[in-house]
C-alpha cells in the first residue's frame, strides 16, 4: 500500500512494523509542504509500527523547512516509542539535527513567561507598586543625605557635571522658554481682552497678564518645559549609565551614585530655575504688552505702570518659590526614573517617558497645593 500524502513525501511500508518515508523533490521555503499532522495520522494506519526510516535518494534540495518538519516528526515518534532510524537522511540534515538537540531546552523558562491570570496580575502589580514606593522613599532619603553632605562640604561630585547642567538648563533652554512664555502671554492677553473689552476695561489686560504670569504661569510653563527637556535628558543619561554597568562601577568604588550624579543635576536645576522663571515672567508680560499696544491701543507707559501697580512682591516671591520647587521635583523625578531603569535600550526610552509624565504630574499637583495653601493663609 502506498499513501501519497503529498508529492513531496511517500509512505512505503517495508514490513508490518517498519515504514520507510520517501522524501521527494524540493523541500524549500515556498513549496507546498505536507502537514506534519497528516503524516502522523498517516502513520497511525500501521498499528504495530516500531520503526521508521528515511529514503532521501530522490530528494533534490532542502532547507530549514525540512528540519523543522523532521524535528516535530521525530519528537512525536519518540514519544510514542517508535524508533527513528536517521541513517537514510542526507549527511547535512543529520548533523544539523544533532546540533539542535545538543543543548537541552532550558526548563522552567517557558513556564515562567506564561501569561498570568487576572488575580496573579493584580497581585503582581500591587507588589510592584509597594516596591516602587519603597524605592522612591529610599531615593528621597539618599538625596536628603546628599544635600546635607553638600552643606557640610563633604559631598563628592564633579564640578564639571554641575557646570554642564547649569549650561543645559540655562543658556540652552532660553530660546524655547522665550518662545513659549511670549506666546502664553499673548494668549492670556487675547482671552482677557475679549472679556474686558465688553466693559471698556482694556487696560486691565495688564493686570491679568502680569499677575497670571508672575504668580503661576511663568513658573508652571518653565517647569513643564524643563520636565520635557532636562528631566527626560537626566533620565536617559542615568538610565544609559545603568545599562552600561557604569552605576555599578560607581557603587563598587564606594561612591554614592545619588551624591555623584543626582546632586549636581539637582543643584544646577535649583540654581537656574529662579532665573528662568524671572525671564519667563518678563517674556510673558512682553507678550501681553504686544497685544495691549498693537490691538487695544493702550499706551506703552500706561501698560507698564498698570503692570507695576498690579503685580505685588508677594506674587513674585510665590512664583519664584514655586519655580524652585519645580526645579527640584523635575531633577529628582528625572534622576529617579533613570536610576530605576532596567538593563535594555527600551528601558531607557521608558525611563525618559515616565520621567516626563511624573515630572508634569508633580508640577500640577504642587501648583494646586501651593495655590490652596496661599489662599488659606491669605497671601
Amino acid at each position, binding site marked *: 500500500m502506498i499513501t501519497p500524502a503529498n508529492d513531496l513525501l511517500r509512505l512505503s511500508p517495508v514490513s508490518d512494523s517498519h515504514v520507510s518515508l520517501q522524501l521527494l523533490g524540493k523541500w524549500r521555503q515556498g513549496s507546498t509542504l505536507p502537514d506534519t499532522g497528516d503524516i502522523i495520522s498517516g502513520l497511525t494506519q500501521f498499528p504495530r509500527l516500531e520503526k521508521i526510516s528515511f529514503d532521501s535518494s530522490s530528494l533534490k534540495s532542502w532547507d530549514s523547512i525540512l528540519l523543522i518538519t523532521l524535528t516535530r516528526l521525530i519528537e512525536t515518534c519518540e514519544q510514542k516509542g517508535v524508533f527513528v532510524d536517521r541513517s537514510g537522511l542526507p549527511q547535512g540534515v543529520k548533523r544539523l539535527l544533532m546540533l539542535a538537540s545538543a543543548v*537541552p531546552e532550558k526548563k*522552567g523558562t517557558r513556564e*515562567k513567561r506564561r501569561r498570568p491570570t487576572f488575580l496573579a496580575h493584580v497581585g503582581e502589580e500591587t507588589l510592584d507598586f509597594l516596591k516602587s514606593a519603597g524605592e522612591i522613599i529610599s531615593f528621597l532619603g539618599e538625596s536628603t543625605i546628599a544635600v546635607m553632605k553638600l552643606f557640610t562640604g563633604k559631598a*563628592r561630585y*564633579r564640578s564639571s*557635571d554641575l557646570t554642564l547642567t547649569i549650561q543645559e538648563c540655562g543658556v540652552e533652554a532660553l530660546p524655547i522658554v522665550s518662545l513659549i512664555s511670549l506666546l502664553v502671554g499673548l494668549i492670556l492677553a487675547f482671552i482677557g481682552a475679549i472679556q474686558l473689552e465688553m466693559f471698556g476695561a482694556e487696560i486691565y489686560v495688564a493686570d491679568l497678564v502680569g499677575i497670571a504670569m508672575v504668580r503661576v504661569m511663568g513658573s508652571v510653563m518653565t517647569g513643564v518645559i524643563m520636565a520635557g527637556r532636562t528631566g527626560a535628558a537626566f533620565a536617559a*543619561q542615568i538610565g*544609559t*549609565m545603568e545599562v*552600561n*554597568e*557604569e552605576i*555599578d*562601577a*560607581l*557603587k*563598587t*568604588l*564606594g*561612591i554614592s551614585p545619588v551624591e555623584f550624579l543626582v546632586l549636581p543635576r539637582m543643584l544646577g536645576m535649583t540654581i537656574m530655575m529662579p532665573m528662568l522663571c524671572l525671564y519667563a515672567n518678563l517674556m510673558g508680560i512682553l507678550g501681553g504688552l504686544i497685544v495691549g499696544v498693537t490691538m487695544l491701543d493702550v499706551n506703552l507707559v500706561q501698560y507698564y505702570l498698570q503692570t507695576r501697580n498690579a503685580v505685588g512682591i508677594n506674587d513674585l516671591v510665590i512664583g519664584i518659590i514655586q519655580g524652585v520647587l519645580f526645579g527640584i521635583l523635575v531633577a529628582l523625578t528625572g534622576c529617579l526614573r533613570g536610576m530605576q531603569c532596567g538593563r535594555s535600550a527600551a528601558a531607557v526610552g521608558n525611563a525618559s517617558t515616565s520621567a516626563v509624565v511624573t515630572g508634569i504630574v508633580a508640577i500640577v499637583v504642587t501648583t494646586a497645593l501651593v495655590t490652596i495653601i496661599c489662599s488659606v493663609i491669605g497671601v
Partner: protein
Amino acid sequence: MKTTDHSSVAQIVVKNLTMAYDNYVIMQNLNFSVNPGDVFIIMGGSGCGKSTLLRHLIGLKAPFKGEIFYGNTSFWNVLPAERDRIMKQAGILYQSGALWSSMTLGQNVALPLEQYTNLKQKEIRELVAFKLSLVGLAGFEDFYPSEISGGMRKRAGLARAIAMDPKFLFFDEPSAGLDPLSARRLDELILELRESLGATIVVVTHDLDSIFMIGNNSVFLDAGTKTMSAMGHPRMLRQDSEYDDVRLFLRRGETKESRHR
C-alpha cells in the same frame, strides 16, 4: 597599599551560596574558597551565572541564601559602610567595560585616585599615563569611551581597575573581544600584577589558553545541575575530572577519540 601579610587563611570563602533572581534560582550550594595570591578562575557555559556570582562577590547583589566571607568578615551581614571599606581594596573590570561615558579615559582612571588618595594633580596625571601604557593605551588620555573600540574599552576598564594597586582584582571576561596578541599580553599582565602587588585575582573567562596559562585554582559552574561540579587546578581538572562536562569544556568539546572529526 602594599600588604605584606601573606597569611595562609583563605581570603574569600563562599559557603552554601544560592543565587536567585526574584525566586528563579540560578545556582545553588556553591562552596569554594580563594586563597591569597590565587588566580581563581570561574568557568562554565554561557548564561550559567558567572557574572551573577561575581556580582555577589563584589557586593552588588545579595545572596538568596548562604554567606560570603572576606577574611573573618561575613560580607553580607555587615553594614554597607563596612562592605564599601572592603571594596575599596578591590579593582573590578566589568564585562562591558563600564567606563563612565561622560569622562575621558584619563578622568576615568583618575577618579579613584582623586577620591581616595592625597596625591597631587601632577602625580595623578603621571600615574594615569603609566596605567594606560600598561594596558597598551599610552596617549589615549583625552579620548572619550565612545571614541575607542570595544577591545580598547575593555583594556581601559582594566587600567581603571588597577589604578589603586588593589588587593583584590575581579575580571569579567577580560580577554573577550581582544586579538590573540593583546589577550596574551593581558594574561602576562595579570600574572605580573599577582607577583608585584601580591593581589588575589578572580577571573571569569572561557578562554582556554588563558585558563591554563594563568589559573591555579578554579570552579566550574554547571547550568544543567545548577551547582558547581568541580573545583581545583584547571590542568588537573582537564586530566582527570570525574565529570565528563568539565573535561569536555576544558578540551573544547574534543574527546580523545573524536579528535579527528
